[in-house]
């Protein structure tokens, strides 16, 4: 990076040309969270006076919904905007455009939470939690783990100290940590245990939605399966809803009810788990599935694997964003951006071939 580039978040209201699809979306009763035409742009500042010179279009208009108690996965290669989408959805980033809807614990009503702030936002934090990718980076090295797990309760005003301590011990047992360890620091634990601490912190307030941001990617395979099983058991026990972000398709297949495939800030296909794996419609999804290694040397290696890198989200290709790497590219792809089409019930894809 030769130029002085600085990425910050700013609140931008009016510079979007695409966000005004002013139709109020409708969601059925069993939906917990939904987003409509969600955008997140990061401005790039440069030049002498630090003016905005471009945007990184990390998330560029995606819509999806997650039913209560289900797991929705976002997949795609690095730089597709999965993590940004999730963090924008739970209001860790301020969205640049679009709407986020959430069924609130308190009222049971579906609410637009895109612009809430202050106390209202803090009460939303109680209902939406996140488990981070890097288990050591997401735990403060200076605070004992017992206090880390206790902190959400302090922040949300659970006054009684005994009540909090009991809950910490209970949570540690639930995620499979010895309660004796609560005075220890995160560097004294293994990666898998640290992720358990992260999960305990996320679940201590009984949230509705838990975002698992590549929660198992940093762990080795045997620990991965332990954590995945833990997550599944917790989902059953507390009827949690997961937004699961991963690039490991085997994990996604194991965990998900529905799956959304992202490419360069856009959703290119979304479908129920079985449908997506058995009948992928979009060329990008097909390529992704093809790239999964098969542990069988007899199988021929004549698969089509997409070449090259994901284009820059600062200046994405015109028309269909996948056209630069698509094996089935046509003339129209350069000109017109494909819209999401329902090709069978609950199976949507955005491609001119369909």
């Amino acid at each position, binding site marked *: 990076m030769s130029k002085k580039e600085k990425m910050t978040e700013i609140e931008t209201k009016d510079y979007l040309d695409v966000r005004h699809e002013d139709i109020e979306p409708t969601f059925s009763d069993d939906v917990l969270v939904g987003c409509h035409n969600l955008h997140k742009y990061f401005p790039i500042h440069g030049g002498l006076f630090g003016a905005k010179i471009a945007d990184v279009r990390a998330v560029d208009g995606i819509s999806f919904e997650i039913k209560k108690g289900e797991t929705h996965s976002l997949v795609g290669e690095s730089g597709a905007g999965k993590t940004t989408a999730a963090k924008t959805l739970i209001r860790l980033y301020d969205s640049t455009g679009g709407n986020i809807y959430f069924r609130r614990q308190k009222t049971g009503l579906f609410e637009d939470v895109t612009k809430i702030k202050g106390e209202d936002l803090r009460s939303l934090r109680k209902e939406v*939690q*996140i488990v981070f990718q890097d288990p050591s*980076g*997401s735990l*403060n090295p200076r605070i004992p783990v017992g206090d880390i797990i206790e902190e*959400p309760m302090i922040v949300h005003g659970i006054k009684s100290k005994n009540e909090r301590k009991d809950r910490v011990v209970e949570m540690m047992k639930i995620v*499979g940590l010895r309660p004796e360890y609560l*005075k220890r620091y995160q560097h004294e634990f293994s990666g898998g245990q640290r992720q358990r601490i992260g999960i305990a912190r996320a679940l201590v307030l009984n949230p509705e939605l838990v975002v698992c941001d590549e929660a198992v990617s940093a762990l080795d395979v045997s620990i991965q399966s332990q954590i995945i*099983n833990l997550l599944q*058991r917790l989902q059953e026990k507390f009827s949690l809803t997961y937004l699961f972000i991963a690039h490991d398709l085997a994990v996604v297949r194991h965990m998900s009810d529905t799956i959304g495939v992202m490419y360069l800030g856009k959703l290119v296909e979304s479908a129920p788990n079985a449908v997506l794996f058995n009948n992928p419609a979009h060329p990008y999804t097909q390529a992704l599935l093809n790239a999964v290694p098969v542990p069988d040397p007899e199988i021929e290696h004549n698969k089509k694997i997409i070449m090259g890198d994901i284009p820059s989200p600062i200046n994405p290709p015109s028309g269909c964003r996948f056209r630069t790497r698509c094996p089935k590219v046509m003339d129209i792809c350069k000109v017109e951006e494909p819209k999401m089409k329902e090709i069978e019930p609950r199976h949507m894809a955005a491609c001119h071939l369909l």
Partner: protein
Amino acid sequence: MKTKKNMNQDLNQKEEESIVEERDSINGIAGGIENEAGEVMGNVDYTYAQMVWIRFRKHKMALTGSAIILILLILAFGASTWCGGQNPSFTDITHRFLPPFSPGHFLGTDDVGRDVWTRLLYGGQTSLEIGFFIAIPAGLFGGLVGSISGYFGGWVDSVLMRLVEIFFSIPTLPILVTLSSYFGANKANIILLLIIFGWAGTARMIRGLVLQIKNYEFIEAAKAIGCTNTRIILRHIFPNTLAILIVQMTLAIGGAILAESSLSFLGLGVNPSTPTWGNMLSSAQNFMWNAPHLVVWPGLMIFLTILSFNFLGDGLRDALDPKLKQ
């Protein structure tokens, strides 16, 4: 035979299952505890303070430094005990310029016959007091300003950092001389002035550190659980800057003692009737050729103190945060 073996196997299996069940009921639904970290953790739980102490005591120079500081503190603040109740300002014109080891005057007397040993101890009191009272508030204030500046960024950062640059660009010594002659040279004024001109460097350094810390994922995690900004700064960012802040303050104590000495040496520090190492040096310079010991003692004390604090700072840096060691 075969059936018996099978039965045995069955029994074993059942036993195993019951053990697993028992373990599950103990451990909640997670099904077992990972054991792989048992080795990492060993059998002893060290608290953070204990680990700091274990690392600190390996640093011999720092241990020596802190021993010297401790001795100096005991000597200075127990001054009335060690000097046999002598008054540091008691003058005795008949016994001027006594050499060291004179009877009744362990380190000799100065130009008006005051006992040097007594003045050295009481001077240490003032000098060390000034050192602590300047370095700690200046460090804390600088740390707070730096944390706010780094955490909020944007215009807050710009304003605060321009302020820091203003303080950097003021030539410290002339302004201190001017101000202390204007407001009067007493201990309180000197402390206040040196605090006002001492926090900027710490603020700049802590800001840089906070810029780094605030990008760590645990800060995002704190936001995700709904922490307020105040809580994030005080509970998550500040403790992570503490290692560097403590080291910085330790080094600043030496610096503050030196600054006070320079001011006193120029005759603009603490009032000459109150002994400090600086004004002892200052009054001794006139008699350097006929009574060199008057220069040696306070000079040696300043040298020892600053050296010790620097070693202590070094040791603390390595002990508090091993990652900082180059």
